């Protein structure tokens, strides 16, 4: 699992533009739950690292934009970081050929922001959304196999 997390963080470090001032400060211990999920679903290591990297970007974007006020000393940096991580997520998903994941998560991510914009609690945790995707993907694979 540690190897998977390290590989995901390496992918992110390589993808992040040097001009970006965003710090990829993902906490490896927080990635363990997602890494463990990917292992449970027997996702091959190279793909697992990519999926973990993508979900980590979304998680970082959420954290950066959480609870911002004009009084925040790092307001500008946090806005830019969140925006950058979100666009990098799509960019990497295209590169990793994981657009089906983007398609699956898109309405969930959008509904999360709708709730927050309306002052409600956010949507489901990203690890839960990812599990939904992996489950759906395996169901399709089983159906295709049966045919």
């Amino acid at each position, binding site marked *: 699992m540690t190897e998977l997390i390290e590989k995901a963080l390496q992918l992110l470090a390589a993808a992040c533009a040097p001009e970006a001032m965003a710090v990829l400060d993902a906490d490896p211990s927080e990635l363990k739950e997602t890494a463990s999920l990917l292992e449970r679903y027997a996702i091959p290591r190279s793909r697992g690292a990519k999926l973990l990297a993508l979900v980590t970007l979304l998680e970082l974007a959420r954290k950066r934009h959480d609870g911002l006020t004009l009084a925040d000393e790092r307001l500008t940096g946090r806005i830019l970081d969140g*925006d950058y991580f979100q666009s990098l997520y*799509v960019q990497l998903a295209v590169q990793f050929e994981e657009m089906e994941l983007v398609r699956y998560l898109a309405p969930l991510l959008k509904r999360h922001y709708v709730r927050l914009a309306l002052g409600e609690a956010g949507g489901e945790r990203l690890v839960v959304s990812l599990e939904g995707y992996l489950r759906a993907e395996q169901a399709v694979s089983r159906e295709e196999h049966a045919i």
Partner: protein
Amino acid sequence: MKPSLPETLHIDIKRINREIEHIVKYDKDVPRTSVLARSVLQLIRSGGKRLRPVLVIAGSRFGCAATGSRQYQLAAAAEFIHAASLIHDDIIDRSELRRGAPSLHTQTGVSAAIHIGNYMSARVVELLSGYTADHDRFVHDLSSLATAQLCLGEYEQLRHAYDYDQTLEQYLEKTRCKTAQLMATCLRTGALSADARPETAAMLYRFGEALGMAFQIEDDILDFTATAETLGKPAGSDLVRGQVTLPVLYALADPGLEPYIRAIQPETPAAEVNDVLERIRSGDALERSEQMRRQYLRSAMQAVEPLRSHPAYGQLEVLHRYFGGKTA
């Protein structure tokens, strides 16, 4: 009355506006009377030149497929991305006005405004995520590459605030990221969406990038020459916020002006800033900036010279005249 840019290009602006509004109105996840729906619609209806959607449609005319609902959807998505970036920009700049009206965060609070911007970006990703085929990959440039470039431009701006040692190259790179690349991507996306040849789309990209550079330089010049009413914000805002724009860079090369400009810091009184603005206006910095702008306009036309015999070439001439500051 002079025809508008969309009228001259025979672009149905009402259809574009309808399509933009549909993005939020037909979103079943957004309550119709919610602050979210009202805020997005208010922002969209507050005006704006719709340059990015116009560029998508103009680009699509270089393809062999007819311009239709797909192109209008992409055009609307481009404007949605631009509008979302404006919400976050206004918070970053602490701007209380947008197009002469109170900016969104002053009405909803910062946290809600951040998430309204995020909603708009996520909605575009949702709409475009239907394009999963390999030959449709270019569609995602709008919500990934171009958007990431916008952020990189903003990072550069942040890094170089009140940096009077910024180089011309750094300024140009920031401008390319912040303004020019989204415009260029709009033209290319429009062209590829209508099955234009990749070489044609690449030429249109270079044309759009040069026009975008000229557009931003004009904006920089207007900060010194236009009135607050025209700008929708106080004149000289860039200098007050420590933005070392092209006229400021040229003015810094004048030893008589340099110390006055370098003295401008976040707490500098308005009267002192106004004095520096006046000094810059009376020097040759604006004229030199104008020359650079014209140079980009010339590069734009050179980039599309091989398309001269294309039936849609006239669209590019109209865009060139518009960005060149002449009436379309």
